């Protein structure tokens, strides 16, 4: 079954703090191996299981996560 939700992360604004990774109930997110322009390992979705709960976006201190969900 395809994922019901998806997250769009603004890589350049992400500071790689990892708070969203802990908050995700489906362990969808992880820190990327690559770094952004500021040298942070940004957060990215690695598993296609997002349920669109927006927990990650709620705890993101920098507001870089936009969440979509099929209604």
């Amino acid at each position: 079954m395809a994922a019901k939700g998806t997250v769009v992360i603004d890589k350049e604004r992400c500071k790689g703090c990892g708070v969203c990774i802990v908050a995700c109930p489906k362990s969808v997110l992880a820190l990327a191996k690559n770094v952004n322009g500021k040298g942070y390992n940004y957060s990215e979705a690695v598993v296609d299981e997002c349920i669109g709960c927006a927990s990650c976006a709620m705890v993101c201190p920098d507001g870089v996560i936009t969440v979509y969900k099929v209604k």
Partner: protein
Amino acid sequence: MFNQDIVKPENLVYKKTDVLTNNVMHYCPGCGHGTTHRIIAEVIEEMGIQDKAICVAPVGCSVLAYNYFSVDSLGAAHGRAPALATAIQRLNPDHHTFTYQGDGDLAAIGTAETIHACNRGENIVIIFINNGIYGMTGGQMAPTTLIGMQTATSPYGRTVELNGYPLQITELLSQLPGTYFVTRQSVHTAAAVRKTKKAIRQAFENQKGKKGTSFVEVVSNCNSGWKMTAPKANEWMVENMFAKYPIGDIKVDGELVQK
């Protein structure tokens, strides 16, 4: 793992509010300041008071708060944000003045202003970020630092003999008749963020009804000052900070609900 099919405007669940500017925040990665900024901005957007909200920025980590809120802002002298907010709110009684202060600003140098503004029952919202340390200046001991906690100025841990007890200023303020709503929240999990948002919404609603001072403490992390990663700092906060600073409403509608 990116589903382009789902990314459509009608499927949007959550997006950063436009009341926050697009400036990259200067806060350390994982700092609770950013989260608190965002939920204040969301409350302002939901209530439709962007043109009436006035932010009073403190001295401390959040000194540059006016760079991030797309509302009118003023910077107060260290600790004097409630005094400045008093003037602004008295001159603009139908506006929404809120101060955003850290524990060094509100509970140390600004104790007098805070207590007197609350005691007068000024119709302002005070958002108080308590992370038990002076973050901006490099992690020195604050009045709210826990017993035994190591900081730059208490390298062997805070002791009662030398430094006294941590100041629970929120409980102190709840005893004053001027405060109408006093609560303590946190922003470490999604559920906690939603509760804090509700509390901040309540504070602004009280202000609309001219009920008196609303005081929202947000127990937050300072991963740089505590020398931990952000998720670890949040765990440490739950284990240690919440014992001294328990989460929950303290005064609702002018009535004490705790103690």
